C-alpha cells in the first residue's frame, strides 16, 4: 500500500455508494429467499393485541389511516392484522382517511381481509363504511368529534350514509375505539379532540414517531401503541396469520445488523486512521 493507513483508511473514508449498495442487497435478498428467523414479541404489542381482541361484537370502531402511501408500506402489516382482529370480533368499522395518497388504501385492506369479511357476513353500509378523505386538517377533526352528521353526509364514493350503521353516531362518545394508523398527520388532532375527551384510542406508528408518541401512551391517553413494522409482524404472529410483516422481518434483522456493522467499522476507521491523521497535522 502506497498510502499509509491501508485498510484503516478505507474504513474511515470509503465511498458512501458501497453503503447504499449493501443496503439494497441486504434488504432485497432475504425478501427473495426468506430465511425464516424466529421473532420475539414485545409487551407493547401484547397490550395492543389485548385491547383489539376485547372489542365487542357491534362496537363501532373508527379506523383512521393518517398516512401517505409510503407510510402504508411500513405499517401495512399492522393495518391488515388489526383489521382482521376487528372483523373477527364482529365490530362495525368506519374507515376514514387523512391524506390524499391514502385514499387508495382502504380497498387494499378490504381486499386483503376478504376472507374475514365473508366469514363474518359483512355487508357494506350495514357493517362497514369507507368515508374516504374526511380528515384534512385540525378543524375537520374537531368538527367530527363535536357533531358527526353535520360534517359528513356521504361516503367515499358519494353515496349517502343515511341508513348505514352510522345513523346513531352522534359525536366522539359514539365510538368504542379509534384505531389510528399514522405517519403523524392527523394523530395529534384525533388525540386532542377524541382521545382527550375520553374515546379509547390505539395507534400504530411508524418507527420515527415511536419515541415522540410514547409519552401519550405512558400518560394513558392512548390505550395501546404498536411500533413500526416490527410491531405489525408481532401482531401477525400473535393472531397466527402470517402476512407482510413477518416475511419482512429477515430483511429487518439484517438491515439492523448491517447498520451496527457500519457504525463499528466507521469507529475503527476513525480511531485507527482519521484521528491519528488529525493529530499529525
Amino acid at each position: 500500500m502506497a498510502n499509509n493507513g491501508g485498510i484503516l483508511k478505507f474504513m474511515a473514508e470509503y465511498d458512501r455508494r458501497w453503503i447504499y449498495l449493501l443496503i439494497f442487497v441486504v434488504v432485497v435478498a432475504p425478501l427473495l429467499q426468506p430465511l425464516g428467523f424466529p421473532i420475539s414479541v414485545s409487551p407493547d404489542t401484547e397490550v395492543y393485541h389485548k385491547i383489539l381482541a376485547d372489542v365487542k361484537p357491534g362496537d363501532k370502531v373508527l379506523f383512521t389511516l393518517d398516512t401517505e402511501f409510503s407510510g402504508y408500506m411500513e405499517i401495512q402489516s399492522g393495518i391488515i392484522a388489526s383489521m382482521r382482529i376487528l372483523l373477527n370480533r364482529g365490530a362495525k368499522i368506519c374507515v376514514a382517511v387523512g391524506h390524499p395518497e391514502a385514499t387508495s388504501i382502504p380497498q387494499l385492506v378490504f381486499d386483503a381481509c376478504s376472507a374475514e369479511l365473508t366469514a363474518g357476513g359483512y355487508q357494506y353500509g350495514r357493517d362497514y363504511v369507507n368515508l374516504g378523505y374526511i380528515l384534512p386538517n385540525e378543524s375537520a377533526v374537531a368538527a367530527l368529534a363535536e357533531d358527526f352528521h353535520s360534517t359528513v353526509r356521504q361516503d367515499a364514493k358519494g353515496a349517502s350514509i343515511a341508513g348505514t350503521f352510522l345513523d346513531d353516531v352522534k359525536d366522539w362518545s359514539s365510538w368504542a375505539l379509534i384505531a389510528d394508523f399514522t405517519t403523524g398527520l392527523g394523530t395529534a388532532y384525533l388525540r386532542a379532540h377524541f382521545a382527550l375527551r375520553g374515546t379509547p384510542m390505539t395507534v400504530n406508528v411508524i418507527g420515527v414517531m415511536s419515541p415522540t408518541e410514547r409519552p401519550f401512551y405512558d400518560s394513558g391517553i392512548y390505550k395501546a401503541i404498536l411500533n413500526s413494522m416490527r410491531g405489525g409482524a408481532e401482531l401477525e404472529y400473535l393472531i397466527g396469520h402470517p402476512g407482510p410483516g413477518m416475511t419482512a422481518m429477515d430483511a429487518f434483522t439484517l438491515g439492523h445488523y448491517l447498520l451496527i456493522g457500519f457504525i463499528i467499522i466507521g469507529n475503527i476507521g476513525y480511531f485507527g486512521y482519521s484521528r491519528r491523521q488529525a493529530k499529525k497535522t
Partner: protein
Amino acid sequence: MPSLFTIPGIINGRFLGLVLDILIAISVIYYIRSKKQIFVRRVPGLDAIEEAVGRSAEMGKPIVCSFGIASSGFDYWTLAGLAIMAHVARLSAKMGVRLIVPTGGSDQSLIVRPVAEEIVKDAYTLEGVGDHFNPDDVPFLSGQQYAYVGGYVGILQRLRPGSVVMTGSHASDAMNIAETSNAIGAITITSGSYLSNTAALACASDYILIGEEAPAASAYLSTDPAQRASIRVQDIFKWLSIGVIILGLIAVAMGSSLVTNLLAT
C-alpha cells in the same frame, strides 16, 4: 372524572387548562409590557458559532448558514433560525468571511426567502460593508425538499466551506446536509426542530443546539422584548412543572392524592 369546578349547565370542569392558558397569556403580556430587561443566559452554542466563523476567517474559507425549509412559513423554529442567521451574517460581515445562505425547501419558504435576503443585506450594511453583499449568495435552490438538499449538498461539495451552521426548521433533510458537511471537514453546527431529528443530528454534528436552545439563543441576541418575554414565561412554566412534580411525588409518598386530583380538574 368528577371535578371540583363544575357548574352543571354552565361550566364543565376543564378548569385547570383554562387557568393555565390564561396564566400564560397574562404573563406574556406582563413581561412584554414591563420595561425591565429580562436576563437570558448565553447558550454555549453561540460561542461555538463565533468560533466557527473565526476559524473560517482564518482558513479563508466561506461559511454556509441556513434557517430551515420553513414548511409552515414563519413558525417558531424558523424565526429562531432567522435570528441566528442574522447573527452569523453580522459576524461574517465583520470578519470578512463570505456567507452563503441556501433558501427554499418548501412552497412556504417562498414567503420567508425575501425576509432572509433582507436580513443578510441589513447585517452587511450595519457592519459598514453593504457593498460586499451579493444577492447570488442567497440562492433559491428549489421549492421541493429533496431538490433543495441536492442543491445544498452541491454547494457544500463545490465550495468546501470552513463551517456550516444549520438551524431553524430543517426536517429529514438535515441528516444529509450534516453528513456531507462532516465529510468535507467543515465545522458542523446544527439544531434540531423535533426530537428524532435532534437525536440523529446530535452525533453527526460538532456542536448541536438541543431543542429550545435555538429560540433561547435567538432571544439572547435579540433586543425584541417579546422574544425575551417568551423565554421568561417558558422558564416560569418549566419551574412550575418541576415544582408540581416534586410536590406531587412527596404527596403521593405520604399517601395523599391531593396534587393528582387537582391536576385532574
